[in-house]
């Protein structure tokens, strides 16, 4: 339902005043709204028709039936209200994805009292409708939406509603969680340029040595699982089990520097950094990241990559 713009603004302002965001939202009387659904209004209409039967046919029992139907609508308000009342929604984690992919947020629903709360629906135009059945204390729910831009992807204000158990009334709350997912830039290939500030020291000191196959490095004691091809046979004759140890020599740590991409727009620079990161990761080379105001020491591995991607995603955001 869309209202005229000024009214909508005021409505939004009112909603956000009444329902401020938080990491944890407990639904109580001031947060839960409840109105009859169209189906409930139909029930009211039906009750009126039954009352007409009662009046026109002078049927006493139909008076009772008519009022029973009305009263059931009223009682349904209580039953539906119970589904949301006391429910605690807690922000858990949110993902880190490439811009353009779907990101997911995970929320925890908990209830101080174990009570069957029926199916609860999380509604927002970004994900349509996600239902979760709440039976017992804790339930986890995952919401996902598509991203289009790099940066902070806050979980939008969504609507949590329940029509259970009779669909006659709908109880809902607009919930704004303080939960952000992040989207890092889509990788775009751009050449890096050497940066003057890089200290041109003795490169060989910075050589990175790792187990490899290229150059003979030393002999070491045999461990179970070593390849027979690498046995050092001359030593074997002296009753020593020794294998040849090979290494790969690597260039100095790669610094991915903001300033190594002069002349590019901000987003493009970040995209390029993302591309180089990915490349380093694929080649299993360590890399460090330098952004204005931030430096991440060179390292390897998935966690390091995630950390750097997060830094790219958060770039330019106030912390």
């Amino acid at each position, binding site marked *: 339902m869309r209202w005229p713009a000024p009214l909508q603004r005021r409505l939004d302002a009112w909603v956000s005043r009444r329902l*401020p*965001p*938080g990491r944890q939202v407990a639904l109580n009387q001031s947060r839960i709204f409840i109105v009859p659904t169209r189906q409930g209004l139909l029930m009211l209409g039906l009750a009126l028709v039954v009352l007409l039967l009662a009046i026109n046919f002078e049927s006493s029992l139909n008076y009772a039936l008519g009022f029973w139907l009305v009263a059931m609508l009223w009682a349904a308000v209580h039953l539906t209200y119970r589904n949301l009342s006391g429910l605690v929604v807690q922000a858990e984690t949110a993902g880190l994805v490439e811009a353009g992919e779907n990101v997911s947020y995970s929320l925890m629903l908990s209830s101080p009292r174990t009570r069957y709360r029926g199916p609860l629906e999380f509604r927002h135009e970004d994900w349509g409708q996600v239902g979760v059945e709440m039976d017992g204390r804790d339930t986890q729910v995952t919401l996902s939406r598509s991203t289009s831009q790099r940066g902070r992807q806050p979980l939008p204000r969504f609507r949590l509603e329940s029509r259970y158990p009779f669909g006659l009334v709908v109880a809902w709350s607009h919930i704004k969680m303080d939960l952000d997912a992040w989207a890092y830039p889509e990788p775009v290939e751009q050449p890096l340029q050497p940066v003057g500030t890089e200290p041109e020291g003795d490169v060989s000191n910075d050589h990175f040595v790792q187990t490899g196959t290229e150059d003979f490095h030393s002999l070491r004691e045999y461990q179970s699982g070593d390849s027979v091809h690498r046995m050092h046979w001359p030593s074997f004759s002296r009753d020593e089990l020794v294998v040849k140890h090979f290494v790969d020599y690597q260039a100095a740590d790669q610094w991915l520097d903001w300033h190594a991409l002069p002349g590019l727009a901000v987003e493009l620079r970040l995209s390029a950094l993302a591309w180089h990161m990915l490349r380093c990761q694929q080649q299993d080379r360590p890399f460090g990241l330098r952004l204005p105001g931030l430096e991440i020491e060179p390292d390897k591995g998935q966690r390091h990559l995630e950390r750097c991607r997060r830094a790219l995603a958060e770039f330019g955001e*106030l912390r």
Partner: protein
Amino acid sequence: MTDIATVTQQLLAQAGKVVSGKDEVVRLAWVAILSDGHVLLEDLPGVGKTSLAQTLGRLLSLDYQRVQFTSDLLPADVVGAQVYRRDEEAFQFHPGPVFTQLLLADELNRATPKAQSALLEAMEEGQVSSDGVTHALPVPFHVIATQNPQSQAGTYPLPESQLDRFFMRLSLGYPDLESEKGLLSGTRGRSLLAELKPVLTTDQLQVLKAEVETVKVSDAVLSYVMRLVHSSRESGLCRLGLSPRGALALMTAARAMALVEGRRYVMPDDVQRVFPAVAGHRIQGQREHDTAVLVQQLLDEVDVIAA
């Protein structure tokens, strides 16, 4: 003669001779001392921070020590150290300047975090430990620390958790025209300090402190304080809201302020008067807000009277 309102009058009158035109700051510092708290003075150099500390020390007949914090200051320079006495052939504890009743810690943020935390621990615990032996600090023990906001280079800003240990953060600001004129024209100044007569003995001060606890707080005021605190945490204005310790400090300060005003019950006006000093250094804005603006905004937005 422990009618607190009269004492306050005398205190302000006497202090006014040295630090003129700064009644409200003196009053707040007085409230902090009554609340058994420590004060952080954040100001430009040369606006009279030291004078204020000395004046208070003198008026309240407190022993006074001053430590200039520098980057090469060691913890032992503050709390004291074990010294080998050749004649006794034993180590003996040589107390540092912290063993006093009123300590002026000048330019606290120039010292290394290590030295800072030595002082802050002493403030928190009321005792110092050196080589496994604890030594109790005198009672009362108050610290007035100053820090210089302008010269950030080469300083170690206090972390938030440490800031929380200061009961109040005060700022003197430039003197007003009238006071500055007096300052410039006269020869008065630090020489005046010697002429000040104490208004209280230490024992009388302790009695007054005990009275703070007896000041009544009605539900209406309690609710107002809770709403202020809650709002600082939840409204979205602040990244860091008021800590429980901060809330407690706010309550105590308001009580002391009521007492200073000669009342036995707290009014929201008291809370509002102490709020900037108590909360200013404990909350942080979402952006690089000036916390003074933020604090004012909180005061403006939170309704004094519950709906």
